[in-house]
């Protein structure tokens, strides 16, 4: 234990000096404050025991917050400025961002937006497809994930640890590799077709823009994110509650629907949100397993990003903005839920 602690300390000491990346006011003001703190502590010891300077804890959060202000809030603002800016077609379709809100013009943004509903509405299909795929994939994720999580939490006695490790392992395998693996399996002369040939389904080109392949890929990619919160929640349900349900005369099925499911409801909702958020922005699943016939919202963004010459950057910014609005509600819902759970704990 002593050795471990020592090691922990050295690790900590390695870690702290690396911290000063962005401007960091934390370490420097401490010395001058030290004497004053001692005086104050002596006086206020009865109430709180220990006294910290008022800026002490806030200063810890400064580097991280500054980083996020520059690398999270600022980019979002620039995206808005580009989306509500202009396109300079004489300069190879370069984006001309309008940084001041009172200059914002909505002409280029509106022309992107109108592709969803007017004219040939070329963006409408990918949008609807995204909703369909996300819906289908998250329903499959929920049903399959619930079954697996339920089994692992309640019945997997001896092998629980092993199953858990296997359930977690997809997290450590690159998403791209997992989808790439399917690309090989689903190839026209790959193993899946080889298996299907005897039952007369051989030579199916699964990779030629089939919705079912893309949905399968989405489920495959994101279902671990569904299973783990479900497992954590189902694992916490006390057996005595289920026994109480049975003792009061409910059937196994009734106990499941009236006790287990309501108790796991927060995890179900959290799982759905965790799974759908990245699905909305997914583009590589379709890139590897589908075609333009199955393109999703994320593909619109990447296509525009590559079409710099025709004002693609501005269109990209507009699409990112539209996607952000779509995912805003589930995102805020998830944050509210996690905060409520933290407060309950």
């Amino acid at each position: 234990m002593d050795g471990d602690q020592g090691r922990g300390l050295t690790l900590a000491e390695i870690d702290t000096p690396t911290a000063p990346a962005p401007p960091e006011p934390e370490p420097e003001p401490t010395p001058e404050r030290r004497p004053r703190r001692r005086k104050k502590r002596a006086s206020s010891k009865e109430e709180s025991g220990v006294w910290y300077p008022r800026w002490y804890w806030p200063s810890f959060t400064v580097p991280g917050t500054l980083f996020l202000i520059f690398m999270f809030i600022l980019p979002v603002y620039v995206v808005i400025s580009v989306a509500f800016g202009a396109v300079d077609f004489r300069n190879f379709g370069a984006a001309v961002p309008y940084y001041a809100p009172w200059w914002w013009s909505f002409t280029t943004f509106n022309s992107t937006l109108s592709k969803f509903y007017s004219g040939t509405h070329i963006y409408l299909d990918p949008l609807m497809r995204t909703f369909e795929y996300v819906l289908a994939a998250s329903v499959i994720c929920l049903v399959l994930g619930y079954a697996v999580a339920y089994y692992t939490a309640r019945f997997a006695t001896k092998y629980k640890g092993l199953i858990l490790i296997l359930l977690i392992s997809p997290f450590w395998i690159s998403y791209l590799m997992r989808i790439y693996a399917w690309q090989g399996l689903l190839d026209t002369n790959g193993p899946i077709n080889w298996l299907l040939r005897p039952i007369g389904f051989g030579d199916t080109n699964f990779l030629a823009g089939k919705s079912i392949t893309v949905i399968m890929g989405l489920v495959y990619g994101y279902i671990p994110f569904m299973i783990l919160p479900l497992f954590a929640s189902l694992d916490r349900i006390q057996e005595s509650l289920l026994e109480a349900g049975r003792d009061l005369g409910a059937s196994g099925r009734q106990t499941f629907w009236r006790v287990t499911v309501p108790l796991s409801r927060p995890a179900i909702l959290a799982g759905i949100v965790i799974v759908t958020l990245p699905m909305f922005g997914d583009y590589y699943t379709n890139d590897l397993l589908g075609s333009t016939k199955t393109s999703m919202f994320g593909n619109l963004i990447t296509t525009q990003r590559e079409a710099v010459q025709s004002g693609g950057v501005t269109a990209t910014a507009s699409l990112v903005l539209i996607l952000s609005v779509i995912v805003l509600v589930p995102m805020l819902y998830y944050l509210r839920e996690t905060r409520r759970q933290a407060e309950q704990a």
Partner: protein
Amino acid sequence: MSVALEQPREQVKTGRYFGNPWRRPRFLQATTIAYLLWSLLPVVIAIAFSFNDGRSRSAWQGFSMRWWTTDPTDSLLHDPAMRTAMIQTYKLSILTVLIAVPLGTLFAIGIDRWHGRPARSANFLMLLSFVVPEIILGVSLYILFTALFKNVIPLGTNAQLLGLIAYQISYPVIIVRARLLSIGPEYEEAAMDLGATPNQSIRAVLLPLLAPAILASVALVFADTVDDFVTVAALSSTSDTETLAQKIYSAARSSPTPEVNAAATMMLITTLLVIGGGLLFYRRVAKHQGGGGATDFAQL
């Protein structure tokens, strides 16, 4: 519940395994096994095909180390493009860990002890960066670096690094905070009652207590950055700054050979090594049960 009282009698007739709580749940068991096979077999097969003798990654043509070491141009060992990608991948991962984990740890400590409106806003911002779809953050940063910061930070390694930190910084915050909640402020208070300054008590008491969580963050952030594709792809400039994940992606879209499988396997090996090492160390340091470590990891 009065309705429910009549149920048991009926249940004897209708219930399959739902009726008998002690019956083995064969259907669920089969589903779970099928799921696990479905979720892991493709990866195993992809790894196996990195040893394929032919160019195909779907038809087996015999075992060889061709795509790993022996082929003079197209093997992982000798392909210069792959080597650049590997170096870039690990460089970015290590640097991201070195910056994101300390930043996140400090942030977590601060936010855990500081209760105020700005603290809540900062925490909200942090969690927002955790849930935002990666494409939104990645493409927003792409636009930032090509528009506003065009002449300051052009696309390339620096931009990739900043993007990765922005996407990863919330992991250590969440892990370290969870650990802080279970530690409580008592140890530090004790240290300070014994005469330590706040800084001393953090360095000598709190950080060692947080070591398991920090370690877990290191492993997690490293593994996640090695695998990262969206952010890295959005912010890379030339082929020199392409990572393994990007190579896999572009090869998968054109003409993949088992070399790609080998590259992906390489990524997997490093990730698993780091995670496995982290988990072992974590268990030693925290003196936790295996389940404790696994569930701590699982919470993400």
